[in-house]
């Protein structure tokens, strides 16, 4: 199976769709048309490719991990999205959406952010293209990702701390949607993951497809073919969708790793929030539950609809790990390879480390979606 276009209504199997207030429907339809046209336009693609190369630093390397591989008894490869400009995979999507917004004549970007990486990337693209930028971030995340708040402000963005609900990513998205409802004529909502109403899940995955395409080529050169297993952390699921899209039509196992406290696929049921039908952590009445994770970027009760489809069809499977396991993995990679990962991709490594016996002797590719600078403070605090 390959990860291709959803239906015109934005369905991946049973999941997806466009569940937004009526005010936003024309904007979503306009975006769908604009994205289709841009994606088929060589000049647009060239401009994005140039920015990805000359500004963001792509292609990102594929790194062998000899010491950690020896310790785990498998062959571990890292796709180094942490080395992109701004420090995570988020820049791939943001450069695409910012160019698209400009092409649609929008002068302002609004974004939600959890860990702050998507907010920083959006603020960066806005600075680059001379656009206004407003970022919504839950109060809890503002205090646990202070460094990124400062970076966004330095880049000229307005950052609003959101004090409603769980005061994390879910509520930041609510607030960004409310902003967009009021400002839709001149504002583009630069959504940060493969979630939300159609065309976002598809469009954001396409902007991240570059991760999987590069990785497949790099794996062919380095190991002579696809890895046995491809692993990525899953919040909304954008870095996972990006790397999975390069391998979905082959034989590699695809594994998404969720936080135990935000396991939408693992513990959720089908539901609709933030524009699409997908797996969702909700109570018996359909009220959305609050996620709880050490990682601000994965602290979300939902998941992108294409992941729900990949899970239901069995093409990918979804596992979860605890905060404790994540902290161990964070230290493990730092100590053995000299790479400090973000807490989000440390989830992927935590699962690999736990399953080392089952994975013995196999080639495992982990999408290292971001670097850990933003988390060093938090981990330092936990170690007392």
């Amino acid at each position, binding site marked *: 199976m390959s990860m291709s276009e959803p239906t015109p209504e934005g369905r991946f199997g049973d999941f997806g769709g466009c569940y937004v*207030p009526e005010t936003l429907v*024309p904007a979503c339809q306009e975006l769908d048309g604009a994205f289709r046209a841009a994606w088929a336009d060589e000049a647009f693609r060239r401009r994005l490719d140039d920015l990805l190369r000359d500004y963001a630093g792509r292609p990102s390397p594929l790194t062998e991990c000899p010491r950690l591989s020896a310790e785990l008894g498998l062959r571990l490869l890292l796709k180094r999205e942490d080395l992109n400009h701004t420090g995570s995979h988020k820049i791939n999507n943001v450069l695409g959406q910012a160019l698209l917004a400009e092409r649609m004549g929008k002068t302002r970007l609004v974004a939600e952010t959890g860990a702050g990486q998507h907010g920083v990337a959006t603020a960066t693209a806005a600075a680059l293209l001379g656009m206004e930028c407003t970022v919504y971030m839950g109060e809890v995340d503002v205090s646990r990702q202070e460094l990124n708040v400062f970076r966004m402000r330095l880049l000229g963005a307005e950052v609003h701390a959101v004090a*409603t*609900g769980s005061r994390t990513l879910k509520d930041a998205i609510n607030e960004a*949607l*409310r902003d967009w409802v009021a400002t839709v004529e001149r504002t583009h909502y630069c959504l940060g993951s493969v979630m939300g109403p159609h065309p976002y899940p598809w469009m954001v995955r396409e902007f991240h497809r570059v991760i999987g395409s590069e990785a497949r080529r790099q794996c062919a050169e380095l190991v002579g073919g696809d890895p046995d297993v491809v692993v990525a952390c899953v919040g909304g699921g954008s870095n996972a969708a990006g790397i999975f899209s390069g391998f979905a039509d082959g034989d590699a196992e695809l594994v998404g790793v969720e936080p135990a406290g935000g396991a939408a696929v693992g513990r959720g049921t089908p539901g609709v929030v933030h524009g699409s039908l997908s797996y969702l952590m909700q109570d018996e009445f*359909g009220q*959305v539950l609050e996620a709880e994770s050490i990682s601000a970027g994965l602290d979300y009760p939902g998941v992108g609809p294409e992941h729900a489809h990949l899970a239901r069809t069995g093409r990918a499977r979804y596992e979860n790990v605890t905060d404790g396991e994540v902290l161990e993995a964070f230290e493990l990679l730092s100590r053995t390879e000299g790479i400090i990962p973000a807490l989000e991709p440390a989830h992927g490594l935590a699962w690999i480390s736990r399953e080392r016996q089952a994975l013995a002797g196999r080639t495992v590719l982990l999408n290292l979606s971001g670097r850990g600078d933003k988390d060093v403070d938090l981990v330092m605090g936990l170690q007392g």
Partner: protein
Amino acid sequence: MSGSRPGRLEASLRAARDRGRKCLVPYITGGLEGWEAAVEAAAAAGADTVEIGIPFSDPVMDGPTIQAAGDRALAAGATPGGIVAAAAELDVGVPLVVMTYYNIAHHMGHRRFARSLAEAGVSGAILADLPLEESGPWTVAADDAGVETVLLAAPTASAERLAAVCARARGFVYAVGLLGVTGERATLAASAVVIAGRLKEITDLPVLVGVGVSTPAQAAEATTVADGVVVGSAIVRRLLEGQGPEGVGSFVAGLRRALDGAGP
């Protein structure tokens, strides 16, 4: 279908319009302390229909006032089933409509939710994040149960889109008065009268303006074109401030007087 007989909600709003009366639809968040008495007070003070909100955890079409009311109701243990059951006990003499978000209906099951509304005597439903394109499975169940699905029509819509919305709307067409979420505004947005006018040209259904209608003067201004108004945050704020059913009743009576003055 357009050929079928209008439901109770549409029939009663049409009857009011035929009498030269402007329609008044107060919104009250279900599950707030004293909400049932507030619904009764609003009806007694001259409402033509009362809209009862079923709180949802992530109300993206709502501003701070209705968000706060929903949070308070949920914290007090409000559930969709509980609110609908309490609505069944109300005897207010005007049709009731519930307003909520799609996941509440989806989670309970379209048929079960629609049937529960019908059995409680609720005439209509508004699902704030269920646009026309996605509304099929719900509207089939709602039609079967005899529940009228009110659709929103926004200033951002093209002429074709407004026509499609009007063709599928039941009860009335909810004209979104401005670009933005619910909440009180100092003045009525110019877009309120514009969207009402665009809709009046293409539909015979009652056209009611909501979102950003917060004072008697604004209600009167909106109904120079529209058939009526929906007023939410200005009422819910009074409940949150502890003004109780009396506060709601006297505010709704003021809206009623303003609308009657503006009638032909």
